[in-house]
């Protein structure tokens, strides 16, 4: 009977359940072996320091002298410290200005270069150069542009007879100056990501949309955009994370000044830890930064379902 036989019939290619389980066990052991080095690295260089920082953040931890347990006092101090509040504001301002500008500039240029125009590859290399050159060298050049008597100031004076603003010495101008420099320095990476995504959009679909009467903007909105949303999601997530961690540009361009108007969260951590040797407060500020980045990245991942199309 079919029913009697069905228990013993094995479809071709299938593996008995017992062997399957055994096989998985064998695979799992090898998987652990292969994962081992990177897991060990993660544990040693990421998880352990993160947990250690959380521990240190609960202490008054001067580099020399007595360590005292404080509980949450470092966090309370940060909450009430006007400089730390300003630092959070500065970092948010940088993110709010930098991320959209970076995406707009890189996407705009990538779209502009996406038709197969002459010299396209040369432009791609050209736009990527600022990403490859050392940040310190870039910042030094921009400082010569921005400082009083610098290129912008001297240019404004000789052309219009007026002085340019003191970009790096004015509380109103210093942050926009840092954002401008950062966008110039950083857009090349996203530009490459977007260029690659745009190259993947099938020409046939764009052509058929054009035949159906779709204009340039409509083709971009309804054909190109949905297809490049995964790249845009990737680019915005990564840019957002790195912009919360901004350090080198304000550190070299303004040292966080004038006052604390361009001091960012990572600079605050660096100053507290390595300049003022106050490891407890530095660790607490580091954890605040970690929680902010984790929170915003989580929101982005949950929100992506609404606008990112992986299946087109």
């Amino acid at each position, binding site marked *: 009977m079919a029913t009697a036989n069905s228990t013993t019939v094995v479809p071709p290619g299938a593996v008995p359940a017992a062997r399957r389980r055994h096989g998985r066990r064998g695979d799992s052991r090898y998987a652990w072996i292969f994962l*081992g080095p990177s897991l*060990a690295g993660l544990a040693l260089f990421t998880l352990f320091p993160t947990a250690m920082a959380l521990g240190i953040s609960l202490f008054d931890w001067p580099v*020399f002298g007595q360590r005292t347990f404080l509980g949450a006092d470092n966090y309370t101090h940060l909450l009430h410290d006007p400089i730390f509040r300003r630092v959070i504001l500065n970092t948010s301002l940088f993110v709010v200005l930098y991320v959209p500008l970076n995406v707009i500039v890189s996407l705009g240029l990538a779209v502009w270069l996406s038709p197969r125009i002459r010299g396209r590859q040369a432009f791609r290399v050209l736009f990527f150069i600022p990403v490859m050159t050392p940040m310190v060298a870039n910042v030094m050049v921009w400082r010569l542009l921005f*400082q009083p008597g610098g290129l912008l100031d001297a240019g404004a004076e000789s052309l219009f007879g007026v002085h340019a603003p003191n970009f790096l*010495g004015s509380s109103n101008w210093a942050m926009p100056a840092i954002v401008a420099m950062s966008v110039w320095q950083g857009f090349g990476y996203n530009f490459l990501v977007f260029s690659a995504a745009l190259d993947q959009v099938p020409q046939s679909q764009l052509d058929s949309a054009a035949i159906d009467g779709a204009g340039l903007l409509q083709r971009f909105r309804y054909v190109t955009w949905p297809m490049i949303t995964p790249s845009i999601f990737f680019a915005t997530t990564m840019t957002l994370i790195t912009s919360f961690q901004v350090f080198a540009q304000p550190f070299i*361009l303004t040292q966080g*000044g004038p006052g604390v108007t361009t001091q960012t969260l990572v600079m605050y951590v660096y100053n507290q830890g390595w300049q*003022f040797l106050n490891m407890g407060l530095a660790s607490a500020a580091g954890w605040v930064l970690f929680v902010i980045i984790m929170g915003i990245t989580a929101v982005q991942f949950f929100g992506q379902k609404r606008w990112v199309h992986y299946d087109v």
Partner: protein
Amino acid sequence: MNGTQVRSRRWLIVAVAALMVGGLSACGGGSGGDQSGSADKADLTWQFWVGGTEDQAAWQKVADQAHTDHPGITVKLQGASWENYWSKIGTLLASGKAPCIIGMQSLRLASYSNALLPLDDLMAKYNILAGEFDKPIMDGLKADGKQIAIPYDSGPMVVFYNRDRFKQAGLAEPKPGWTVDEFKAAAKKLTTGGRFGFVTTPGDLSSLPWVLTLTGAQPLADGKLALTAPSFVQGYQGYVDLVRKDKIAPPVPAGSTDFQTTQFTAGKAAMMVDGPWSVISVKGQTKFSLGIAPMPAGPDGSKSYTAGSGFGISRSCKTPDAAFQAIVSMTNQKPLAALAAAGRAYPSRPTAHEAWFTAADIHGARETLDYASAHSVPLVTSRNWVQASDLFNRFGVQALNGELPADQALKTVQDQAGAGS
């Protein structure tokens, strides 16, 4: 859970634990601090700030002097850039693994003095007299009355000026005893055609001598920051007014520690305040003739601060006698004269000054430095000075650019740095 899974998990836990233990012990290890030996026989390590391979070679020669004087002692130089140096020795001193010999700057001494050995007993034992060195810098390297480091360089803050521009403007060159009013009159005349008579910086070493000469006020009272005292505020206001009211100096950018030097060497500003340690390097960057003059005299005469650096011994050093003998050799006449001749430091020993004057070849240098040194005091700092200095740089820019009134800038520095001790 079956046996294989348990075994593999156990294996994983053991592996991760072994790695973490290995990592922890690696963190606990470190270089330096391992010196052993006796007073006359030891291999010592010396942590110091160096600017590059050429600098490293010049300072290694200083270290070699110890071996020449004491064949049993060798000193190995470990260099770090100025920016990285302070965090590096901070961690080394904290871990008890610091090398025996530590480079120390007078302004930062108060922050690190707990981790360094007082040298008074060793000075008495080896018959080293404080009087062999410039007094202001010997005092500047003391903490709570105890000598913490022996200086290799020193120097009062002085006015650097562009002799060519003074000549072109038909101005007499500044002489010891010149007054603040004479300084302002000269700077006003030199402020013309997009160029300025003077350039300011928010940095402590260049701004505080102005406060001192204008009102006599010092940043510390009883070892604590006293920046909101009326006389200090008045003096600081006087400094800010050079930009805001007198308009003899340009606005300043934030975070640019070399702005004053670049403005001065480019001929855009005719005067600046700096220390003698910068004279020879500034001279090398200028196309004009360089002169130096003491700080202009305020109501109570010319006043300035002396700063400098020296070498101390870490408390964890097992051979302090050998380290001290090495330091004595390294701050002796011969290496100091060699450093001076190479343009690296204005020597802390008056007997080595001659070599520096010959190498610098600056108009009026001897007269100026002798006068300025006699009219200077050490800039005594508090334990939180690194923080105070950082805040001076930040809020000083806002004060000099007119974004924040001088008294508010000082109050912010005072409040944020804490009273200190």
